């Protein structure tokens, strides 16, 4: 069935065939095939499809566990370098002093700030010298396939038995994630029970470089957190806006500060220190203008080198700030968001109606999970909220996850591009588009949540974000590099 179908369907249509999210076998096989792995698989002349699962699972049963461990043989050595790193830095993980050509499993686990256990694992074979490395060798099974140096981090999933609908986000950026990485004998599934740990290493993953200062902001009604790089400055700066999840997310700002930008994460919705009822946006243009001015007036900020980055609803806010409030940012980065408000406005300053009251464009999949995508279809956005792009005066980079299930990113990108072209401003527009990537394009090497818990009251709702692990991870890695280069170009030169 599949070899004929292969020529007709895209590689990414095949991904669902390789998912085995329920452990039905003694070997819990969760393979998220990367593009490279798909190539390797087809080179191996294994036809993608159900037969792949059976063949690979069969290989695993053949290898089994390695009975060579004895008390007179020293344990092998597992190393990670650097052992303390920023989350966007690559870590080189190697195993040495193993027997030659021997199957092993690398198993990573860590606790989120909320105490949930996340884990991933991958199967490798040592070479003739008894060594292997994640930077040079392919994973032949587990949470990811193929040569993926950072695969252990981006392929992490909540451990079995944990709470449902989880999403991994660092709340406290002043402490690192502690990742315990173990080397196990044989090709095993770590949650399958019988494991023998041969070696281990602990790695720290930081969202903040040494010397970066974290400053809580509660002045003039502005609620946020500012991060300032070490050194005298002055520095270019970034205003950092997230989406309708609300609250205050600091981790992207702390990373930007670690790259030399003063960065202000701004809360505008769903935060206890903001005015008004919590189910709507009660701050308007003046609020965002004040936040921008806060950055401009900071003694360590270069006042004419400030950019804005926004994800999801933050996209719309970014565009609105740049075209309506009178401030002059130097560049904008918009990720997967609309060019108009997804919630009806109640005044000309941008305040909105109750968020959840307008549900007519919500759709649901067959498991009852809500998909917000159609809410931001341009045709469904309140016309009075459309940003007047002809007023845009600075470069704009728009990033699209083509598998975004939460926002109509491609349609909005198209419309933004068209509007700018009409206004004779196409030269301001840059688009990055990533197949297989979902809504939550975040700093690299963090796991993607294809869906997660959206609300618990009045009823439990899980929302779909979209994105498949390997292509989404590739998108995050590439997008982050390109964002940093873009900021470098427009804020530093």
């Amino acid at each position: 069935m599949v070899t004929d179908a292969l020529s007709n369907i895209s590689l990414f249509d095949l991904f669902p065939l390789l998912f085995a999210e329920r452990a039905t076998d003694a070997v819990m096989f969760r393979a998220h095939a990367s593009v490279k792995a798909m190539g390797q698989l087809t080179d191996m002349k294994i036809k993608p499809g159900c037969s792949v699962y059976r063949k690979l699972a069969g290989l695993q049963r053949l290898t089994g566990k390695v009975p060579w461990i004895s008390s007179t043989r020293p344990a092998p050595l597992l190393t990670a370098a650097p052992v303390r790193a920023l989350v966007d830095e690559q870590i080189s993980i190697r195993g040495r002093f193993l027997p030659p050509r021997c199957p092993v499993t690398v198993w990573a686990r860590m606790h989120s700030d909320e105490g949930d256990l996340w884990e991933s694992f991958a199967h490798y074979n040592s070479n003739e010298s008894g060594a292997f490395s994640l930077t040079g060798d392919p994973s032949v099974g587990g949470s990811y396939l193929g040569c993926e140096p950072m695969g252990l981090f981006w392929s992490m999933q909540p451990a079995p038995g944990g709470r449902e609908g989880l999403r991994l986000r660092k709340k406290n950026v002043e402490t690192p994630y502690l990742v315990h990485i173990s080397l196990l004998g044989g090709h095993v599934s770590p949650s399958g029970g019988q494991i023998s740990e041969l070696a281990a290493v602990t790695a720290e993953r930081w969202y903040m470089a040494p010397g970066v200062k974290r400053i809580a902001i509660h002045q003039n009604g502005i609620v946020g957190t500012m991060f300032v790089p070490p050194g005298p400055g002055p520095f270019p700066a970034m205003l950092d806006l997230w989406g309708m999840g609300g609250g205050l997310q600091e981790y992207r700002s702390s990373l930007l500060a670690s790259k030399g930008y003063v960065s202000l994460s701004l809360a505008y919705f769903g935060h206890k220190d903001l005015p008004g009822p919590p189910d709507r946006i009660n701050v308007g243009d003046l609020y965002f203008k004040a936040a921008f001015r806060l950055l401009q007036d900071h003694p360590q900020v270069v006042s004419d080198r400030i950019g804005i980055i926004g994800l999801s609803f933050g996209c719309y806010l970014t565009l609105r700030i740049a075209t309506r409030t009178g401030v002059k940012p130097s560049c904008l980065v918009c990720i997967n968001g609309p060019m108009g408000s997804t919630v009806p406005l109640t005044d000309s300053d941008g305040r909105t109606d109750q968020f959840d009251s307008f549900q007519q464009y919500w759709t649901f999949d067959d498991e009852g999970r809500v998909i917000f995508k159609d809410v931001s279809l341009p045709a469904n956005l309140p016309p009075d909220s459309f940003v007047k792009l002809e007023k845009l005066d600075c470069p704009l980079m728009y990033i699209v996850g083509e598998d975004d299930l939460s926002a109509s990113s491609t349609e909005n990108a198209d419309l933004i591009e068209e509007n700018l072209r009409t206004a004779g401003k196409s030269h301001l527009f840059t688009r990055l588009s990533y197949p297989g990537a979902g809504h939550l394009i975040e700093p690299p090497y963090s796991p993607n949540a294809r869906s997660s818990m959206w609300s618990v009251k009045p009823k439990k709702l899980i929302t779909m974000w979209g994105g498949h692990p390997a292509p989404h991870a590739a998108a995050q890695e590439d997008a982050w590099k390109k964002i940093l280069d873009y900021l470098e170009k427009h804020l530093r030169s």
Partner: protein
Amino acid sequence: MSLRSPPPILSVRPSRALVDEPFEVSVENLPPGGPVTVRSLHRSEDGDDWEAYGRYVSDHSGKVSVSEDLSFGGTFSGKQPMALLWSMRPVPGSRSGLRLRKLKVTTPMLVNISVYRGHNDFRDQTPLASAVTERWYMAPGVHRVDIRQEEVQGTLFIPPGPGPFPGVLDIWGGWGGLLEYRSALLASRGFASLTVEYLKPGELQTDLEFSSFEAAFNILKDHPKVLSDRVGVLGSSAGSIVTLYLAAESTAVQPRCVVCISNANCYPHESGLSGIQHLLAKKFDKIRLDENNHEIWRGIGLALLDDAPYKVDMGKIRSPVLLVNGRDDQNWPVLETADRMAQVVGAAGKAHLLYRLDYPNTGHQIEPPFSPHFRATNLAIDGTKDKAILLWGGETKAHSEAQEDSWKKILSFLRQHLYCSPKAKI
């Protein structure tokens, strides 16, 4: 504040590292072809400020890369990626004869690296940019265990993971007190390591005997997370006496391999280890002074080379021995000692067990890589209330290269003999 263009940015990658890992320091957004000074600054646990600096010229794109570009002077010159660490010295106006040693290994060394305009007088200026980097002796997950037994006082470091691990007994030389940093680093590299306190700070007097070290060796060997047949010994300076004893003459223990840094091989028979101080004192007339009144103790060692009532009989070694020495060692005649040992070993038909690394222009204190070199440091001589400045020797650049090279080779030697190599027999 508004500028025509934002100021330079300085980055250190990685920003957090173990002390033996290299880093890359680069500056961007400088005026092209402009003179700058890149400087590192560290405040030691004793409250002294140490600094290193190099003078650079930015390229056409306004970049300086410390790893790639040449320094035109400062505390180092030429292409020296790590000299911002190893060429550090106390800032002008500091006390003399200082030494940089980290005693608390659970926290990192913080080094501030900055870039200044021009090649002169940077101390009066505000830097153009700076960054902070952390240098750690201990990897995450390494356990630190206090050992407080009757005979053995020290600290044990155990790598993360299930183990069991090969072990290394770490023995320092005189005047140090309890030094943990080398053991912490060895544990970060996969060896369970025990460091023993036997010479209190400022002393060469000890109550310990060889048997105490045999006890320490056994503590390590019998630890449930240590492979009992894969324990080696690393000793430096006076500590190499014990190390060689354990390698050759001990009947209670048998190290699988030993490393001696800046070897010595003499002790008074009548009082054993505890008499080292007296042994040396008898030859204090052999101390010479250099042009700065720093004390050169080499002569003591030379006089003892033939005189010393007892030496470890190297002909009896049973396991591989690596000797690491500096050819400009002014504190002890390490080369002459090593030559004598080589003769004895050769005569016993065991030349294949002895490995030697002799480094030119290198002094006595061969430490883990990138530690600053100090040619002479203060010493309070116990019992006399005198302070002397001892000359260790070595020329900074060559000595730092020796530290970097020897550490790699020491780790490789330890791995080869204590970890399983694929070619090893079962």
